[in-house]
């Protein structure tokens, strides 16, 4: 415990760096998944392709991807940008199929009625389709958020600063408390973000209460 109390500033610094790498991928995966899912739903073969590619993408472990990306996009191995790009790809692999399912769950009759009431395509998407797909989208974002926050730590072995540095430094110096602090801080950050997303969902979708959509 004394290690934790003596190093609160270190933990706070790493938490900040952690969030800088975790939040952009979560946000990007969500925003980019919407048009990609709409595109995928427009063609049957495209949808099958997207589902298959996403499944395979998710099977690729994170560290090899962190290692390969710099050679492909020209960033440094220790660059946080690298982590952001890799985690956005994972986020998309999870989020695009989920969003695709979410949009498909919206009844065609409802969309037809909205058109008949005079909604232009863009307005219909924002005011009808997006809110109705909302609960499924929220379920997807929650999974993306938790897994992204946990995956950021892997960058620690490459020397990219995040809460993962507590594991790398802790094992090098043999300080159990430092590693335990890192595990607790990462899990707490993930669960806190998840709780915030649930609250945000209740605020934005007051009609959707009780059963939360989640992935098995």
């Amino acid at each position, binding site marked *: 415990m004394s290690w934790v109390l003596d190093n609160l500033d270190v933990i706070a610094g790493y938490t900040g760096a952690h969030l800088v790498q975790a939040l952009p991928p979560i946000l990007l995966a969500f925003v980019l998944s919407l048009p990609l899912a709409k595109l995928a739903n427009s063609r049957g073969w495209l949808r099958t392709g997207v589902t298959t590619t996403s*499944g*395979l993408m*998710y*099977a*690729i*472990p*994170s*560290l*090899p*991807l962190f*290692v*390969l990306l710099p*050679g492909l996009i020209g960033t440094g*191995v220790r660059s946080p940008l690298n982590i952001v790009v890799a985690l956005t790809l994972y986020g998309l692999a999870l989020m695009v199929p989920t969003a695709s399912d979410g949009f498909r769950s919206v009844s065609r009759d409802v969309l037809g009625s909205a058109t008949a009431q005079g909604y232009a395509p863009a307005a219909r998407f924002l005011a009808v389709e997006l809110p109705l797909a909302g609960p499924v989208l929220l379920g997807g974002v929650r999974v993306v958020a*938790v*897994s992204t*926050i*946990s995956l950021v*730590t*892997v960058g*620690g*072995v*490459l020397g990219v600063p995040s*809460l*993962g540095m*507590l*594991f*790398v430094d*802790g*094992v090098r110096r*043999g300080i*159990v408390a430092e*590693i*335990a602090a*890192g*595990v607790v801080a*990462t*899990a707490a950050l*993930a*669960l806190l973000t*998840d709780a915030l997303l649930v609250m945000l969902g209740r605020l934005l979708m007051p009609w959707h209460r009780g059963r939360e959509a*989640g992935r*098995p």
Partner: protein
Amino acid sequence: MNENPFLGALDWLADPMRWSGPSGIPVRTAEHLGYTALGVLVAALIAVPVGLYVGHTGRFKGLAVGAAGVARALPTLGLVTLFALLVGIGLTAPLLAFVTLAIPSLLAGAYSAVESADPATVDAARAQGMTEWQILTRVEIPLGMSLLVGGVRGATVQVVATAMLAAYVGSGGLGRYIFQGLGSQDYPQMIAGSLLVIVLALVLDLALLLLQRLTAPRGTVAP
């Protein structure tokens, strides 16, 4: 170092020296597969019976879902390093991490497999005089088999990735090449190691996906 690192990685892989001896690619691949099989097997012995019980009886469902959710938030690297410090060098420490991280997928796969059986079908089986054990083994498990295999697939992906990180604290496996390359600033070797892990992960994932399709009962749609 102007040379393309990917070509360097191919050179590294093409060197016959890499394909023999105790730190050669075949041995490291076998180690990696061994860790993965052992980790998934031990985790399955714990998680599958519990998951089947939860799915069949519906008891402790909230607890199982909650535990799986919390376990998903745990950072892999943190568990690997924590167990390495607490337990020391050897197979026990990484194995503990593999099992901990494989359990959520297997647990979720097992209970969702049992739950996926249509309640009307289960009631029909009960009305025909089947015992609860017969309902579980002859109706619910066969109908949900592809979901159960899906849980094994998720757990395998997780353990392949974790086994690679275990090399950071001294285990064998394909992760060794990445960390050796990192230590000696040999980027082509890191790429070669990464490609080997990715190929292994994809081969295992595709094999289990095929098994998932094959175990889906006729007339149902595999996930």
